[in-house]
């Protein structure tokens, strides 16, 4: 039954990774703006860069 000594920690660790990932998403407000994310994908990444450039030139 020595195998239990590996299996139990492995089982707990795998579950723990999933749990940790979920808690991270909750803590970092990943579920706060579900509608916004769907729309933000339409915004081109390079456009804000132009703004950055204009900011610097100011």
């Amino acid at each position, binding site marked *: *039954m020595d195998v*239990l000594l590996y299996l*139990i920690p492995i*089982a*707990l660790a795998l*579950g*723990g990774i*999933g*749990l940790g990932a*979920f*808690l991270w998403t*909750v*803590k970092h407000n990943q579920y*706060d*703006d*579900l*509608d*916004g994310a769907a*729309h*933000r*994908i*339409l*915004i081109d990444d390079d*456009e*804000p860069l132009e*703004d950055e450039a*204009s*900011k610097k030139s*100011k």
Partner: protein
Amino acid sequence: MEAPTLSDKSTDTGSKGLSCKTSSSTNADDEGVLCSADGTQEPEHKPSGAAQSFSQSVNGNDQDGYHLELGVEGIHCASCIRLIENAMAAHSDVTNARVNMSTERLSLSWRGTRCRGDALTSEVTALGYKLYDLSNDTLEASSAGALEKELIKAIAVAGFAAGNLMLISVGLWSSTAEAMGLATQSLFHWVSALVALPTILYAGRPFFRSAYGVLKGGHTNMDVPISLAVILAAVMSISETLRHGEHVYFDSAVMLLFFLLIGRYLDARAKGKARSSAAQLLSKLAGTAAVYRDDQLVRLPLKDLQSGMRVLVTAGENIPADGHVVKGASDIDLSLISGETLPEFAVVGTQVFAGTVNLTAPIEVSVDKVSNRSLLSEIVRMMEVAEQGAAKYVRLADKAASLYTPVVHSLGALTFLGWWLFMQAQWQVSLLHAVTVLIITCPCALGLAVPVVQVLASGRLLKQGVLLKSGDALERLANIDTIVFDKTGTLTIGKPKLLDEPYEPADLKLAASLAVHSRHPLSRALAAAYHGSVFDVIVSEVPGKGLTAKFEGKTVRLGSALWCGNTETIDDGKLELWLDTGEKPAVPYLFADTLRVDAAATTQKLQRMGLKLVMLSGDRKSTVAQIADQLAIEDYHGQVTPPQKYQHLTDLKAAGRTVLMVGDGLNDAPALAAASVSMSPSSAIDITQNTADIVFQGERLAPVLETLLTARHSTKLVKQNFGLAVLYNIVAVPLAVVGLVTPLIAAAAMSGSSLIVILNAFRIKIRSAN
């Protein structure tokens, strides 16, 4: 210029954007004044007449900067997000700007001076988005979101632990101490303890906190036996583990928490959603008004309006305070206050009320009453009184809990005494049996019985366009015996509709071309009834009379009979618009406020269910009588003022009736608040929807019947679930009392009873539509 489209929506948003831009131009003028002062100026003493100022909501944040959280109106798409965020990010002193689309909020942080925020926000206003302060209520409602978050995290932890404990427990159950060896059993128990104890400490907090709170106040609630059972189970399991015993209940304790947390979360989410939407609606009401001060137009928050101030109200804007018109003439939409379909024509000297909408032309209003003493706030105040006066409804679950706690605790105590005194058992053994009783009478079934049925029922209703705004609305609805209906907008659609008559297509096209330019209800109805392209005409609106335009060299008029050259007016109660093309005699277009298509069928069905129907309306008595006749409602009252409606409701209550109030106008709001339970159509104004417990969508009345049936069915299921829980306890508790329960039986009984309750709740989905 492109031909205007015939969509109501686009004209709406267009004019909204326009009004935003007008207001922002005044803001921009003030911007220089505002921030020319040094950065240390006191926020309370802003130069009065400044741009719309949010400085009272500004918070200092950690990085020596400031933070502001505002509501934003009019965010529809990705470009809205980008516009606002890019405009803010273009400033080097802005450290963070993020738009949340779900909650329609803008979160803004910047370094530098506090008053810098006003310049930034006025820039957003200049883009055409209306900003509003989030009241303390809204921010409190967000902290309800924090509670949900805590519950979600607790569920995740408890779920993880329950799953792993079950793996280990299955090993324990399927073997005996002799077969698996004492060392292995001990290992399994200790691993269980390692997982379970931190979980109980973490995931049990919501229950422990609540139990501690009520115990300190000298009361008791469901959380007290829950906390006690969980803590005792944990302590007993540790002592059993130390003694190498069999009675280790870590899995049951954690599973108990897991199931109960799910129920608790479903409950909290339903409540939190209702609360935050309600608070957000109220925040929107607190807007600003354009006030003349020393011949300059400045924007002031509504609460700063004072008697005698002159306010400019542009077309499409709400009138900010009670007062009288001092300049200009316009049509005022009173439907908010009186439920009247047609707008009232206001000229210099006419009394106007806060909350009504100016439709056609800009007017100037002299404020007579300060905003918090206006008709609108009077009604709001009446509503608050009604809400406070309403007897607090005791939910079924709370009733069950108040029975459950003493019964279970005395059973536990009796078991302990019984084993100790009469069976001469050791006190440890006696305590073990007593604790088993507490664990086995698991309140899972009770804790899940209500939330699961509620979530399934509200999901089912949501599909049909019915939104539940308070958690116990369905329970309260199940008990009603009287329904009070408002007329305009509730039994009827509330908007005039063009009657089906053969109109000349060319004329109709011309009439619609004019009508699209107006916010007048009849114009809108005409425009809505016409499908197709329209002529590109330049239209001017003459308040109180109608619309006029040049078309192919001729003057075309659309408006009242008199104005279109028709002197013989027929007063048959129908609403009409006349079109004068300048060539032939003017043609009338007839409109009427029509009943909801299924109104008669629905009221009939409701009456057949033995419910008493009453109709209260602010409209003329003759119209009310006519409608009541069509719907076979015997008890009806016309020309009822809001206080009378409220009085009628309290009278019905005093007569021992449980009343459902269905209404949509502001005049209904106090009555809605006074009723046992209330519904309003989604076409109702914000404040009414805010008061109502249930909001239904669509142009049919059937949702009222459907919601009532669902309410009765779900309450029946809840009661059945309680019955099942009791039945389960009748079987399981004697086993625990005589000491026959093992950890396997406890775990199986607990999950079994929870599953049965959930499955029974799912029967609400099977029920046929009728």
